[in-house]
């Protein structure tokens, strides 16, 4: 298959759109997955831990 301007056009206009949609759906699932809630809430608070040294 020759890599012509038309090939790139199709890639950008069609598959690019599907890529964007698929990608967005994956990100939304990851962000709102109920099992991730605990991990995110912990991450938010964890930076305030006053302990100033690497953990063992």
């Amino acid at each position, binding site marked *: 298959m020759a890599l012509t*301007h038309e090939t790139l056009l199709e890639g950008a206009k069609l598959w690019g759109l599907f890529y964007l949609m698929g990608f967005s759906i994956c990100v*939304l699932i990851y*962000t709102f997955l109920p099992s991730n809630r605990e991990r995110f809430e912990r991450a*938010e608070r964890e*930076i305030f831990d006053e302990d100033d040294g*690497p953990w*063992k």
Partner: protein
Amino acid sequence: MGQLTTGERDFGAIILIVLAIIGIAMAAAGRSDVLGIHGAMVLVYCLALLFLLLSGAFGTPPSAARLTRYYDDPIKVGVGLTLFWAIFGMFIGVWAAAQLAWPSLNFDTSWASFGRIRPAHTSGVIFGFGGNALITTSFHVVQRTSRARLADQLSPWFVLLGFNLFCLIAISGYFLGVTQSKEYAEAEWYADIWLVIVWVTYFVLYVRTLARRKEPHIYVANWYYMAFIIVVAILHIVNNLAVPLSFAHAKSYTIWAGVQDSMVQWWYGHNAVAFFLTAGFLAMLYYYLPKRAERPIFSYRLSILSFWGITFFYMWAGSHHLHYTALPHWVQNLGMTFSVMLLVPSWASAGNALLTLNGAWHKVRDDATLRFMMMAAFFYGLSTFEGSFMAIRPVNALSHYTDWTVGHVHAGALGWVAMITFGSLYTLVPAIWKRERMHSAILVEVHFWLALAGTLIYVFAMWNSGIIQGLMWRTYSPDNTLVYSFVDTLLAMYPYYIARAFGGLLFLIGAIVAAYNIWMTVRTPAAATLALDDDSPGDERQISGATPTPAE
């Protein structure tokens, strides 16, 4: 460098000797070409570092207790380098601005001509100031959020000092007349190759440190730093693919041709803004702002959504720099559409930062450091809105090639990037040097108002100047001829150019005040015990000198 082990010292010495030999080879091959001068500079730089390295080689070996602490030595040096480049880059900026108002300030020399000091200014502030700030804060944030010490002690120095060698070679080259004529990528091929080596080391160090983390979740600030490191590597390599005239010449020619070259350049250029000047600084925002405000980020989930939005959308926005050119129309449309879409994740980040402060406004009122970060988030929101707006083709028809673009860039660079950096430095410095607070809160306050006044004067001058310029260029008489000559537009801009230079001068004075204040903070010995009042930055409120006890 006092904590380096014998093995690390030996390896460091080998690296420096190899580099010094390469410097000699460059000097010999290049002779009177700029490559030869740069070879000599590489040699001197490596020998100076070798002297520093060896002069400490026969002291007492470092104790194993160092491994129970974070490795902060490179961060301390990095803070100094950041401030040096801030003052240097901003001084050159004020000089370039003054030259536009008073052209004789180039003193009739080639090295001080506007075309040479302008890239020295942009590289000085973006790479010198911004780059050092990013490397320095990333070393701090990755250790604290991963609860792990940097993976080794040699590569942080290699990254920091190697990056500064790149800055030195790049910027001295511009004064000497070397350039690839690519915006933000003016440095020639040998400097570019060196930066790739440094950057890959940076990436490996960062990943190795993350791999050692004791905290199961990787905090979102690290995601932004990683995006910054990875994407800048990709952009830098692709845009700088070039064939040198010969190995004995500084000059090279890009492998890209015509409109492809333009597209690659602005794919690079816009993503340099996105991943160098935004992603890494958002990482600072997501760590230092909650720390300083002592409030968790408003919505952690929103920060994840905006992370993926920013990394995905920005990639496609570069073509908005090439409206009304030979670039295919659909590519221009693509860039324009993605630029407008970018407003969503950008405002999500800015809103997330401002909402984090909701409920802590009394702290913003009392604490100039937090006010720096609040203003940074505000200017981030402002300049991303402006950027999306200017990317729309008909708006771009008015704004392109005018000072409006310059005003937009500086709303971002002064208002957002520099302000978040100074806010972060004022939080980082007392934490790293174990001081209760900065030497002088009043000087932080003075710096804040100088920075804000400087930014506002600069940006308003350029908005006015740019729009006047754009309108004068497109004013036609009834018989379809241009009403204003180019010189007419220059005369109209003259007062704004003076105002702009003045605004920049205020900002520069602010940076000098910051350097003095940080220097005094470092010089003042730490108090034996630190009071546990709420005025100090959140972390490291410990008895100074005591070994921290591991948590688990």
